[in-house]
């Protein structure tokens, strides 16, 4: 394709856009109103965030400027917002742990990595990440009370989903079992967990569960919160898996059994792969929801990214710059969520392209409704 044609197609796209915007007089009026509204929102924000902003200096410089954003505050507090109370000299450790987890997630996202090795990689990666954070064997031990910021958010999400996944498959299979005990147990767990807000599950894990342990045995709060997130995620993943299983024709199971495969083998090699592939887009929506919902641990007093941002703004030296802190944390959440959602769309398109015969059934109830917090 020559340069000339590229330019022409680009121009025709612009022309189509303008034509759609100003097709009729009423369309032109709507366009102008929409642009005016956008300008009314964007111009003051740009003036605040860019034109009048203070980039360097301290709180007095910011207060002198008064009408603009104080990015000097974010520069000053970025270390705390990203890593919380983790000792400043050791911040490379949560940095490495977060990088390992992100690498695992990115690797999991690539279809070419979907092999048995992925499970081993997760087991190894999680062990190394937790070890680097926690310390031991020569590294100084940093108790979980000092963990905070982005690594905690990423850890809760990644381990929550990775741990909730096998549990969710077990619950889904249990719920579809024809034996009464697994069916009743799985149904009860899934319905109760999905029926209550995440806060209730966190409260039960942190306030009530420790009472049920033998005297003298105390469990780490972050560990309990992580366990609560795993259980909560498993219930939502179970419903997604179950809807995938429902879309697999029953004759697949019969065919597997007729070939002499056992029930487990048929499930593992024929039914589950098809079921899971069908509902992949729902998994992505659930993942986006959980990335955002881990912020609820603020309420039980743990320091994730949102809580470190909020605490940074409560520093007496920097009072009143909460907007900057929330914008900084919000931008990180936005990038993570938007990247995941984009990936979900890409995956859906790829699946439709790779295997057009397989209709990508996207159960509306799971893909659109984010998991209720």
């Amino acid at each position: 394709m020559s340069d000339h044609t590229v330019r022409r197609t680009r121009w025709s796209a612009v022309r189509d856009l303008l034509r759609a915007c100003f097709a009729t007089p009423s369309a032109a009026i709507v366009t102008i109103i929409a642009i005016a509204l956008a300008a009314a929102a964007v111009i003051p924000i740009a003036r605040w965030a860019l034109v009048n902003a203070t980039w360097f200096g301290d709180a007095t410089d910011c207060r002198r400027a008064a009408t603009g954003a104080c990015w000097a505050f974010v520069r000053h507090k970025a270390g705390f917002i990203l890593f919380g109370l983790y000792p400043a000299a050791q911040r490379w450790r949560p940095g490495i742990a977060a990088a390992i987890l992100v690498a695992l997630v990115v690797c999991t996202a690539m279809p070419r990595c979907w092999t048995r090795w992925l499970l081993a990689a997760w087991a190894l990666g999680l062990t190394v990440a937790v070890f680097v954070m926690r310390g031991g064997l020569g590294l100084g031990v940093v108790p979980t009370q000092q963990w905070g910021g982005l690594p905690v958010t990423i850890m809760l999400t990644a381990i929550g989903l990775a741990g909730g996944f096998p549990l969710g498959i077990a619950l889904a299979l249990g719920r579809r079992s024809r034996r009464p005990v697994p069916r009743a147990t799985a149904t009860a767990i899934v319905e109760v967990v999905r029926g209550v807000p995440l806060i209730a599950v966190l409260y039960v894990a942190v306030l009530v569960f420790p009472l049920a342990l033998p005297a003298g045995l105390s469990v780490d709060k972050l560990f309990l919160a992580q366990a609560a997130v795993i259980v909560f995620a498993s219930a939502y993943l179970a419903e997604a898996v179950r809807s995938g299983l429902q879309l697999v024709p029953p004759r697949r199971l019969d065919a597997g059994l007729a070939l002499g495969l056992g029930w487990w083998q048929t499930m593992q090699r024929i039914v589950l792969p098809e079921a899971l592939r069908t509902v992949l887009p729902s998994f992505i929506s659930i993942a986006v929801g959980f990335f955002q919902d881990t912020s609820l641990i603020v309420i039980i007093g743990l320091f994730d990214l949102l809580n470190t941002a909020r605490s940074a703004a409560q520093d007496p030296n920097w009072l009143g710059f909460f907007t900057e802190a929330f914008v900084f944390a919000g931008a990180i959440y936005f990038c993570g969520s938007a990247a995941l959602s984009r990936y979900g769309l890409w995956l859906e398109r790829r699946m439709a392209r790779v295997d057009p015969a397989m209709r990508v059934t996207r159960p509306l109830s799971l893909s659109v409704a984010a998991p209720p917090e």
Partner: protein
Amino acid sequence: MRSPADRRAILLQGLGLGLTGAALWWLARNTGASLAQRGLTIGFGFLRHPANFEIGDTWWIPFSPADSVGRAIIVGLLNTALVSALGCVLATAVGFIAGVLRLSPNPALRGLVRAGVEIVRNTPLLLLLLFLAASLHALPSPQHALVPVRGVFLSDRGLVLPAVAGVGWTIGLAAAAVVAFLSRSRLGTKGWVAAAVLAVAAAVSAIARPPAVQPAHFTGFNFVGGVVLSPELAALLAALVLHQAAHISEVVRGAVLAVPRGQRDAAMALGMSRFQSLRLVVMPVALRAMVPLLATNCVSLIKNSSLAVAIGFPDVVSVLNTAGNQTGHSIETMLIMIAVYLSLSLLVASGLGRYNEHLLHTGTALS
């Protein structure tokens, strides 16, 4: 005669039940021991004891620290109900408008709405809530309140709206008329008659007692008259409505796009305008696919209203948490919390099940 597989299954299930029972028994025994160590016993008697804590926002029933814990929980429940009812209605309305606007043929309008929806959908609700609460608390004092519209005041005391007096009967009768009108297909002629009678009654009540708008005025210390929403309530409502409306707009858009395009083309070929074909042909089909999702979104909003505890608005979770901390009966308060939300979710689930059956029965389900 049972097959060997069945016998093995029964054995395994019995084993599983036994293990679960043993684990539960062990946990219960530990709980009993830790409670005995703290000098506590399980029971709901504490609900009658005086609460000894304040509740900031009380709607409909008054509350003082001398009142019982049970009454405090009811106040919390009413607050949750208020936020949920207002939130569901507003979020559905805003979400519907945003969803329809995103289907507009005009790229500028579509893009504007999309930008807003994407920002809200990709940031946590709690971040939005904490930000709004902090922003409202950072507003000027009532003397220097912002007045975006005449009669509406925004200050660090919250949002003050004008009160509207004498509309109770009118609203009630008008709502009954709308309900009768909507169920006219089932009621037949009686529905039309009832709707007409109720509409006339509503009109008469509106004329007999015309609604009076009473804006609040500032008296040097505080606002007198008007409806005052505390900063917490205003922030909670705004955050819940924005967040859920963004999700509902996606539901509306998805449902409309799921209607086969031929239906709209046919309607437009018959000479209907774009809006008419949407309202008369596409929406009725899309609504059937939407209703269950709108209901799940409402349930999410109600569950999300529990984030109130993060900003100190006394909803049912917040009050139960305070009561549990104060009295030491956190197991009982957690049980109440779970019972409240679970009964609500199961109620909606059973309602949706019946609705789906109804659709399958009448053959109007959207495949």
